[in-house]
């Protein structure tokens, strides 16, 4: 019943029931329209890129350095 879903969602006492996150997911974004739309260029970097950047890793990558037990 979509009307009931919408009604409960609109009621301040029950609205919190609709806030959820998947157990291994993220919180919900703020859903504000003024979040960057991605049409701005990334700002000029103020720090030097690090040596171990994603771009430096090959697609078929090498063995990792694992920690000792």
């Amino acid at each position, binding site marked *: 019943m979509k009307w009931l879903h919408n009604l*409960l969602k609109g009621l301040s006492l029950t609205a*919190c029931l609709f806030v959820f996150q998947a157990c*291994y997911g*993220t919180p919900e974004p703020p*859903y504000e329209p003024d979040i960057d739309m991605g049409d701005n260029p990334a700002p000029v970097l103020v720090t030097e890129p690090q040596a171990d950047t*994603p771009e430096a890793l090959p697609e078929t990558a090498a063995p990792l350095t694992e920690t000792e037990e």
Partner: protein
Amino acid sequence: MLRKAFYRFFRANETKVHELNYLFWECTTRCNLHCRHCGSDCMAASADKDMPLEDFLRALDTIPVKERPRVFTVVLTGGEPLLRPDIAEVGRAIRQRGLFWSMVSNGWFYDEAMHRKLMAAGMGALTISLDGLGDNHDWMRGRAGAFERTERAIALAAKEPRLNFDVVSCINRRSITQLDALYDKLVSLGVKQWRIFTIIPIGRAKEDPEMHLTDAEFVRLMDFIQAKREAAAAVKEGPRPMNVTFSCEGYLGRYEQKVRQNPFFCRAGVNIASVLIDGRICGCPNIDRDVFSQGNIYQDSLWEVWQHRFEPFRRHDWARRGRCADCPVWRDCLGNGMHNWHGDCSEVINCHYAKTL
């Protein structure tokens, strides 16, 4: 009693309406770490190539604009999403459709430059994993230096007011001894939300005894979270203490609503779908994809699949078997989280309720 009845009614109605609010995209299965608890056995060189962005967008665009709820998030997950060189382009493409997106990351590559790039691409929420302090985190993540990199990433993200940010911790037999110290560390880094979960006995974690809390340790974890939540609720003035919560991974009996805000409700397939690395369509990515996948974006319309399939996610009768068959809390638990059913599904592999008795 009335409250329980209302919640069951609410849950049944939500299931019937099944509004798609949360779409995972497993955009890569490559990973720069080698976590002991990884359910997908991710590795640096994955057998699966990263899914091209345009393939995912084609699937996303099957959702009619008029059917998109106001609350709808695309969650980028992996593997490690930051290994995709086009990650900002991915975010921009989603945002330019008027949609919101977020990401789960191990934090290794999350430096200031990356942070700025992703914020400019419209990232709205972020989760970073921290599984212990110092060597314990490195041990869990299989790579020296991981703690230092993750700590830096957390500090950076926690300072960003435009980001809904939380830290998740997978608590194991080593980190259960560090709960208070972990809490203090996260508070010192400015974290406002800390989400805790435990490890499902699948993938690499299945045969590793150090991954799985004893029942007594599980209760200790619940008591810790409950105490932190009660202490936070008692604070009426000044800055709000960090919100500590247990993930919605299972039904908790006497701890329901004491360690998280809402009662247990597995929303996989009810409000949550995922597009997996090979195009399969499922509930959450940690659900047994060989058993529960509902279609494939390379053959099916994502929207059609969401509308007309997902029956096992929306009717849990099939799960009334094994120890769930005559369980007294079935009506509230409904067979626990969907990720707790694997293989032949003859038995639920993890019963949170039993641990709390």
